[in-house]
């Protein structure tokens, strides 16, 4: 039932009433997200066993800027590598090898190339894990996961009650048309 207390403040955030619609087919889940959002419902997230293509657009998610982290990591790696080689060979302990200049740039390319890639890879993965709050956990079930099926064969759409204007009757009506295999109501800290 929608009520004024659908958002209850808690120390960790606000608890909200959520309705989960579980599908066994990716295209149905995709159609459901589009229909629900078109009807004014707020779809918080869809949990899927694999990356369903088009789901991010259906949810209206903006394009990720993860590539910027890669670029920054790469530039840092190249800078560190060139800088360190320059410092060791031309500044700290200048060595003339084979009559060549201590600053032998072409010879510095391979190491700089490798470190560019190494730093860029760490920046990409590190940023991804940090931004998605993915870290080793003792808890055996992540609290944000709506049931174990989403890593197997369930595509679970989470509809959240944002305010008193929520229409449960309309949701039930839509759910009948969309054909989820299971619907559950619950609370969630968001």
């Amino acid at each position: 039932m929608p009520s004024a207390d659908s958002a209850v403040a808690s120390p960790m955030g606000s608890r909200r009433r959520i309705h989960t619609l579980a599908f066994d087919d990716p295209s149905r889940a995709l159609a459901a997200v589009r229909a629900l959002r078109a009807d004014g419902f707020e779809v918080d997230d869809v949990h899927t066993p694999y990356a369903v293509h088009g789901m991010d657009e259906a949810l209206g998610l903006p394009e990720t800027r993860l590539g910027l982290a890669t670029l920054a990591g790469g530039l840092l790696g190249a800078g560190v590598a060139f800088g360190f080689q320059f410092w060791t060979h031309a500044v700290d302990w200048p060595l003339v090898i084979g009559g060549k200049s201590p600053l032998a740039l072409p010879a510095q390319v391979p190491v700089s190339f490798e470190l560019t890639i190494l730093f860029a890879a760490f920046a990409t993965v590190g940023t991804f894990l940090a931004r998605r709050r993915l870290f080793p956990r003792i808890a055996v079930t992540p609290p944000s996961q709506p049931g174990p099926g989403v890593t197997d064969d369930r595509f679970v759409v989470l509809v959240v009650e944002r305010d008193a204007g929520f229409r449960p009757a309309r949701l039930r009506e839509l759910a009948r048309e969309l054909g989820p295999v299971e619907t559950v109501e619950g609370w969630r800290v968001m």
Partner: protein
Amino acid sequence: MSAGAERVEELILGNPTFSQVTNEIASPMERRPGPAWWGAFLTAASVLTLGVVLIGYTMSTGIGVWGLNRTVGWGYDITNFVFWVGIGHAGTLISAILLLFRQRWRTSIARAAEGMTIFAVLCAAIFPLIHMGRPWLAFWVFPYPNTRGPISVNFRSPLLWDVFAISTYFTVSLLFWYVGLIPDLATMRDRSTGWRRRIYAFLALGWDGGTRTWQRYEKACVLLAGLATPLVVSVHTIVSFDFATSVIPGWHTTIFPPYFVAGAVFSGFAMVITLLLVTRKVLGLERYITASHFEKMARVLLTTGMIVGFAYATELCIALYSGNRYERFTFENRAFGPYAWAYWTMVACNVLVPQVFWWARARRSALVLFVAACLVNVGMWFERFNIIVTSLHRDYLPSSWSYYTPTLVEMGILLGSFGLFFTCFLLFVRFAPVVAFHEVKLTLSEQRETAHAVR
């Protein structure tokens, strides 16, 4: 789409349901290992133990226990190193380059090939380490504040470039492999109980399959593939610099980087074929790793085999055309000298054997594939042996010419590296999904959509 205009290729046979995919791939990890696994594991572990003992003997006595002499300073050690690094290349090719080219057939075999990459690079790393003679000082190859000056490492040395190339390659491959594993570890977490569940949950990093996570995940994978692609090309290029930048006839050639990279992919694919033929049979994964996968890998083998053959011919032609008597002598000596047997073994295995794959029946026959892939592995090992030992054993001064014969210790260490490789691979198939659940499910759903559209 016009009906029938595009043949729908079934990459996964029999249109299983998603939960069937999960069950079938996870079941080999969940049941107790059978006698076949134990037999293979105990054999591999024994051979690994032999290798460990012989490495201990080498370290405690000195590398004088090997057959190296003043003329041939690199023998089995560096041959094995280049061989194993090469094996690793197919994994990155399948997981990164084929991802960028959107080759869907990669999904079933990518995980196993990536695992193979990591274990092969691990095997490779042993050899430069032990050939140093004092491996406990191996950390000297890294630049760190020290009391020897402080003088830093020589960044102008290709051997140092190799340190950076191999360590970056290993680290990035491991990262790529682990990122690919996270969603699958979550699947295993949700299927298992007890301590297994705790370990999988710890490693799955709290994965919940949300769309935001998947969106970033896919982007991260594409970015990593984009980084791994130039990396894999650079690694064997730099390995070839170890030779190409020195003024030794037979080594000092500009063809080395592309020739090494093609050879690496060639040998790596041969190893993937060998491993997967056995793995899919033992684990019952015929539905996912199909004859069509092997057919495609056989085509790669044929193509790269011909690139390698072309490189052999180019080397001979240039040696003749250059007018350089030392260069010419080296190649005459390679083909008709004391090591001619090694040269012609290489040519037979690498150039002639893959020609069988012009025939579709050969590409689809498990027996032909297995035998040919094993022979290619032998051939590619001999390629490195030829490059290294044959070029060294007769140098500018005939008075210092010699012949290199490996000792049993060296042979045992080579065997031991195979033991390490197979021990790691056998443990991997027990504890991690050897076929990526999530990638196969994506391929499956795309296959269904295409089938629907064509119909």
